[in-house]
């Protein structure tokens, strides 16, 4: 009996505090797998943000830093500048609101860490408030009649990759999803491309991952994944939004593993 799929080393084999069916779990796993594959477990640092993934440091089996809400890109900037040979992962849910200035300027400076932006279209930890990426019409406790950009002046869902793509420092921006095995594998490939580019010191890399939050969407996990497929993916196109990495290496990284 040969092991085909099993627990990555960089993730601790413990029960998480995430809700049943939460998208964070799969994202954690694929990050850990890539780190294992790259052999960087003891050279990695993750910044766990304020949000449900505040717990990330309980699960990832390597160093971590927990900065203030929204400021992970600022903290990650400094961490990577101090430790340029380390793999620095800026794990974020909150970058399009309170972290707007921080992510835009880290991106514009071409800071050489990698951001994993978990877009679950909601503020999970605080109980379901509108996020900058909440879809038009989507319910949130602070958008009790659904997000209404015009009448209620709540603004439009922000496409983070597309916004950042205009900035000079950004080298690799991709959007994946964790709704099904195919997309999960693609997302993992994006993450691997980004992390490899980081270690080559190419510039700013970010992978946005569409993820479900069954709890605050008030759906079963299966329904949540379905909702993600029917509503989020059409609005937030999947794929590599910007890729100006060195061509040779991109090819290598893009090869199926």
């Amino acid at each position, binding site marked *: 009996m040969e092991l085909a799929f099993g627990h990555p080393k960089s993730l601790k084999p413990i029960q998480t*505090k995430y*809700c*049943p069916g939460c998208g964070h779990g799969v994202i954690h796993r694929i990050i850990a797998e890539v780190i294992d594959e790259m052999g960087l477990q003891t050279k990695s640092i993750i910044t766990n943000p304020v949000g*449900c993934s505040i717990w990330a440091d309980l699960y990832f089996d390597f160093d971590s830093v927990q900065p203030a809400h929204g400021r992970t890109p600022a903290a990650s900037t400094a961490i990577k500048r101090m430790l340029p040979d380390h793999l620095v992962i800026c794990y974020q849910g909150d970058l399009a609101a309170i972290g707007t200035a921080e992510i835009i300027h880290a991106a514009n400076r071409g800071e050489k860490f990698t951001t994993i932006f978990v877009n679950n279209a909601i503020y*999970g*930890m605080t*109980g379901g408030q509108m996020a900058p990426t909440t879809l038009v019409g989507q319910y949130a406790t602070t958008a009790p009649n659904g997000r209404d950009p015009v009448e209620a002046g709540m603004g439009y869902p922000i496409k983070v990759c597309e916004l950042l793509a205009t900035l000079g420092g950004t080298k690799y921006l991709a959007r994946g999803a964790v709704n099904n095995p195919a997309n999960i594998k693609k997302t993992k490939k994006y993450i691997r491309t980004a992390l490899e580019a980081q270690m080559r010191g190419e510039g700013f890399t970010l992978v946005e991952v569409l993820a479900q939050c069954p*709890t*605050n969407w008030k759906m079963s996990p299966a329904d949540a994944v379905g909702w993600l497929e029917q509503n989020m993916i059409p609005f937030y196109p999947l794929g590599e939004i910007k890729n100006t990495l060195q061509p040779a290496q991109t090819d290598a990284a893009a090869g199926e593993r």
Partner: protein
Amino acid sequence: MIEKTYMAGFGGQGIISLGQMWVYCAMKEGLQVTFFPAYGAEKRGGIARASVIVSDAEIASPLVTKAHSVIVMSQDSVPIAEEICAPGGVILVNSSLVKADPARPDARIIRVPCNEIAERIGDVRIANMVMMGALSQATGAVKLDHFEAVLKSFFPPAKHGLIPMNLAAVAAGRKAV
């Protein structure tokens, strides 16, 4: 009269609505009330607890640290019940899920098979209302006279169909004591 109740269980057992309904009814009976919930930081699962006080005078601390009555909805709430129950207090145990009783020989321990009773009535989710009936019976602090009226203002009209089941749950809880 002051009745300090501590309610403990896990998320999803309706501890919060139990406490809220209790103080809502108490208020309708002219009592002063406080209700203070405490959850874990996890969104699902985790502990769910509430400090609940009803009184005919102004209530000082809303935190229950010595409880006249304790509700224990799950096995892992037994230790906190043992600790928090005042000498001679009453501990109401959801015997459907709690197999080992609190070790408090000085307390009056009342075992109510809330889940079984609720399932019998039609929905395991009203196990909390069964317990509320039992609490009313055991303490007499809140008579629950206005329970039906409270439910009417609580539920949207579309859900008024659920009211009889809730009334039945309370009645059954009362009888189980």
